[in-house]
């Protein structure tokens, strides 16, 4: 009995210790953002003695960061709309139409999962600078959507294969066009798939660094992830208080999405992961 109890305590300690390692840095971030810069350098850990919102005010007052948030929101929402609509229609075509090339096209889409995004950077950079769309939101939306399509299509094909063919047959017999069948019957059924894809990609796209860093240099088109670098001067010259506040502001929308849609996010992320 004693042994069992001791085991339980050790078990609890191990779980808590790991929880601490995983989460403490993030919690620390939140606490640190509430500390005055002076206190941050003297007592970086522990609870703040003088809670201050100065860091947040500093970040929000110069208006630049709000602009970054707006850019991120624009890129993320347009990309999401495109990802969902394109992969839903393609998924419908590939799973519910009698076409000989469906299988090949599906394989072609799944191939994209293996392709590293780095391959696009040089060609797209050259293409963008030729047509003059560097420093626009479009520059980031194109590759974001392109690289999300393989998984999006796979997930919609996976879901539509559960939609009984009889349902569609009945609609067609009743004189429903394929477009109406999709818009009014099939697509509304896929709400869960839509939420899964949207919640997962909102996180990935909001957090994107590599595309933004390559295609964006003017501060009017910068996204939040890049804006976080604003507060880092030359080596060692980091305004930590402001940086932490900016980080907190940038991850708050995601935290809210994540805690509200927790189930769908983890499902989507793990699915995306295991298919990769």
């Amino acid at each position, binding site marked *: 009995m004693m042994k069992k109890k001791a085991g339980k305590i050790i078990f609890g300690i191990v779980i808590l210790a790991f929880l601490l390692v*995983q*989460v403490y840095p*993030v919690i620390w971030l939140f606490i640190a953002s509430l500390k005055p810069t002076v206190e941050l350098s003297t007592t970086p850990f522990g609870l703040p003695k003088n809670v201050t919102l100065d860091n947040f005010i500093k970040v929000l007052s110069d208006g630049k960061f709000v602009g970054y948030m707006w850019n991120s929101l624009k890129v993320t929402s347009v990309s999401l709309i495109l990802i969902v609509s394109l992969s839903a229609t393609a998924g419908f075509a590939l799973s519910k139409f009698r076409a000989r090339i*469906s299988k090949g096209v599906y394989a072609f889409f799944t191939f994209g999962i293996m392709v590293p995004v780095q391959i696009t950077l*040089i060609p797209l950079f050259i293409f963008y600078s030729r047509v003059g769309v560097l420093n626009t939101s479009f520059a980031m939306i194109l*590759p974001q959507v392109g690289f999300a399509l393989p998984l999006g299509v796979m997930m919609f094909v996976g879901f539509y294969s559960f939609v009984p063919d009889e349902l569609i047959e009945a609609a067609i017999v009743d004189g429903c066009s394929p477009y109406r069948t999709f818009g009014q019957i099939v697509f509304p059924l896929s709400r869960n798939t839509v939420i899964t894809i949207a919640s997962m990609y909102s996180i990935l796209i909001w957090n994107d660094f590599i595309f933004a860093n390559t295609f964006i240099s003017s501060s009017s088109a910068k996204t939040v992830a890049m804006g976080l670098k604003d507060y880092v001067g030359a080596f060692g010259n980091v305004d930590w208080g402001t940086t932490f506040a900016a980080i907190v502001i940038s991850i708050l929308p995601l935290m809210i999405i994540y805690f509200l849609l927790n189930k769908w996010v983890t499902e989507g992320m793990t699915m995306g*992961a295991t298919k990769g």
Partner: protein
Amino acid sequence: MGIIRDKKAFWVFLLPALLFYIFAVFYPIGESIRLSFMQWNGIGDKVFVGLNNYSAMFQDRVFYQALINNLIYLLIVVAMQLSIGLFFAILLTFMKKGVMFVKTLYYVPCIVTTVAITQLFRSIYATEPQGLLNLFLQSIHLNQWTTSWLADIRTVLIAVSIPEGWRFTGLYMVIFYSALVSLDPSVYEAAKVDGATELQVLFKIKIPLIKEILLLTLTMCLTGALRGFDIPFLLTGGGPGNASELMSTYMYKKAFSSNQYGYGSALAVFIIIESMIVVIILRKVFTSREESGKRNLTKGRVKMWKSQRRGA
């Protein structure tokens, strides 16, 4: 296969996505391959140089260093993500209350942007003022271990690998956990009745049963690590010297800092070939298990899969 025969509607539904995909993913692949045979600084004319970029690449000392660094990075990241992820997934299966809570919190680092994560680790590794890590070492009287983690060539590669391993550990834990709990209890309950200990059940029954998931996550972990970019790039930019240079940071620098677009493209082509080789080898090695592994993904399907196996 499907049932709607309308050819025109088929293309109306398929074409937008297909064109988008081809343009965003395949046009760049083709262009990269073409550029990798050129010499071009971004302004003047492109000069066709045949395989020169590739032969230069194989004589480039930094290329080999980046390759070796990338392998070490890969080992650290994969070891951290898979072993820690699996260990805590197993522990969680013994937990009765609060699993959802713990899972949710473990997962938090996955949703934080890499830029924030690098800032966080930059402050953890900092020396002026002392960061979390050095303060911790001092507090347990290991002063001789404190160092400037990101400037010391002996520690920098490990220092840039750990944040990447750390942030996705929760993701792998969630994957392993859902694989473990979706196992049919009747399989291992029988063994327990026969007197098998928890550890025996774990190593002889449960882990072999989720082997497919382990292999799949290994694939994804490996290809993910081969593409590693954000954290090393932001944290050290590959430095000091090339001590933490990875393949993709090197490619990025060659193209966008030294304007050697042809050479950069050759490196990009190498990265894509490298990750495809890894995927192909893993698929070859575990071909027969691939299919069942995929089916293993969802709870409902796992039962189907097992009843088939039992039937066979």
